């Protein structure tokens, strides 16, 4: 799905979280929103997911206006920073949540739900953890379950907020590859937020460098590395 952001701005009680920003994301791209904390990258991601609404501007999904669309009908697979797994549910129930929440007409039969959850557990390479609770999992496992839960709703796009933030270096490397693989097999337009320039450069097709609520530069990792447009970008990617 193509995502077009047109002059989106957001202010919280008269302080700007986002100055008007525009960005065009071609279908199937893996995009990194890169910037230090307070740069507005998470706000932009939450606006895409429908968790936050812009003060001005439009969001287009496949050229149709999605600005006012509620979070439920957007069908954005969202992976939260701390994963936000439902702590009182098993892994299986976590992943099945989105399917069971569908209106009765489009809700799959319970056998079909089981089949799909099993398939997703295989996709994230954790086939045997369905009966466990989130607090019995390691950080890396939780992240993958959160990913599977987001994928279960057959999302139109995948949005990830600092997906590797809370993990140690080794697991982080593994999961980066895992996300790349899942992106390549599903072909979903994927946007993830990170403050780690190395992660953004390695993983993304398109990197969006942000600072102080503005987009500093958009480009392929190599372009950004070779030709940083502003002093901020140069400094940030060499850090």
């Amino acid at each position: 799905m193509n995502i077009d952001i047109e002059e989106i701005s957001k202010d919280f009680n008269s302080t700007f979280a986002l100055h008007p920003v525009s960005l065009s994301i071609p279908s199937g791209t893996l995009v990194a929103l890169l910037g230090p904390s307070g740069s507005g990258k998470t706000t932009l991601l939450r606006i895409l997911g429908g968790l936050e609404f812009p003060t001005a501007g439009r969001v287009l999904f496949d050229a149709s206006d999605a600005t006012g669309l509620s979070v439920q009908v957007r069908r954005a697979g969202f992976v939260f920073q701390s994963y936000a797994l439902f702590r009182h549910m098993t892994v299986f129930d976590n992943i099945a949540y989105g399917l069971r929440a569908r209106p009765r007409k489009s809700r799959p039969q319970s056998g079909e739900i089981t089949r799909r959850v099993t398939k997703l557990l295989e996709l994230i390479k954790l086939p045997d953890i369905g009966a466990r609770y989130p607090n019995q999992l390691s950080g890396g496992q939780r992240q993958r379950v959160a990913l599977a839960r987001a994928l279960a709703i057959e999302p139109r796009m995948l949005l990830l907020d600092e997906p590797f933030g809370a993990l140690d270096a080794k697991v982080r490397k593994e999961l980066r590859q895992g996300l790349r693989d899942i992106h390549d097999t599903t072909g979903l337009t994927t946007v993830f937020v990170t403050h780690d320039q190395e992660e953004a450069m390695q993983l993304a097709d398109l990197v969006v460098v942000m600072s102080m609520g503005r987009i500093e530069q958009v480009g392929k990792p190599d372009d950004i590395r070779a030709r940083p447009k502003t002093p901020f970008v140069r400094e940030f990617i060499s850090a």
Partner: protein
Amino acid sequence: MISLPSPTGRAAQASRRPFRSATTEPLVIKWTLIGLCFSVLTVLLFAPLIAIFDEALRRGWAFALASLSEPDAQSAIRLTLLVAAITVPLNAIFGIAAAWAITKFDWRGKAWVITLIDLPFSISPVVAGLLFVLMFGSNTALGVWLVANGFPIVFAVPGILLATLFITFPFVARELIPVMLEQGRAEEEAALTLGASGWRTFVTVTLPNIRWALLYGVLLCNARAMGEFGAVAVVSGKIRGQTTTMPLMIEMFYNEYLSVAAFTMAGVLALLAFVTLTLKSVLEWRYADQLAATHRH
């Protein structure tokens, strides 16, 4: 103490020194503290409790039970149970709604409302009762109108309900707000992104996450609803057999030198408290695994 075998004499001597971690206190202090705590508990908790039952059963079980079967006593027990049965569910709903609004949304005047929730705790119950008398009493136009239309509030059951609702309002909200603040909004947001409606999110995500805090809040609310004296005393008018709750009945019996009846009634009230505490312990024991599993990860 674990003693490690050590080859050299000096090292052996060192290892024989009693092991003490930074948080361990010397034995004297430990036992002084335990003793102090225990004696306070004895004076303040155990002794009065024993005294209640001792006094109640001084003339035997039959006599005590007979005092309970008196119509006025029966009516007081019924009224207290009725008041608890109505106010506790209502305040559970109000408390959840207040905690939900305060912790999951940002709005102007929130701090003000949080302060307001504490009002029933900071205000004297007698003043709270008086407040309802001043609002709905026969000296106001509203009070006169209510009485004329056959719905008196003051010196009637509705007044008792209002006063009890007011007094017990903070319990559930107070218990829920810190828990819900700590849990944040992420799980609710996750449910919404997965397509769940607001109501479904509340029932399947919020409610299960707060159920223990909710239970504690409800138990405390219940204990107070059954035991409230001051506010209820002011609005009830203490009409025997009609607007007299158990705590008021206890006072009446006591003032009439019917000490066995007074203490038996007090014993029943204490037993009701025991039932709620036991219920809580049983639930905790029964769901110990879930409690552990749902603890923050």
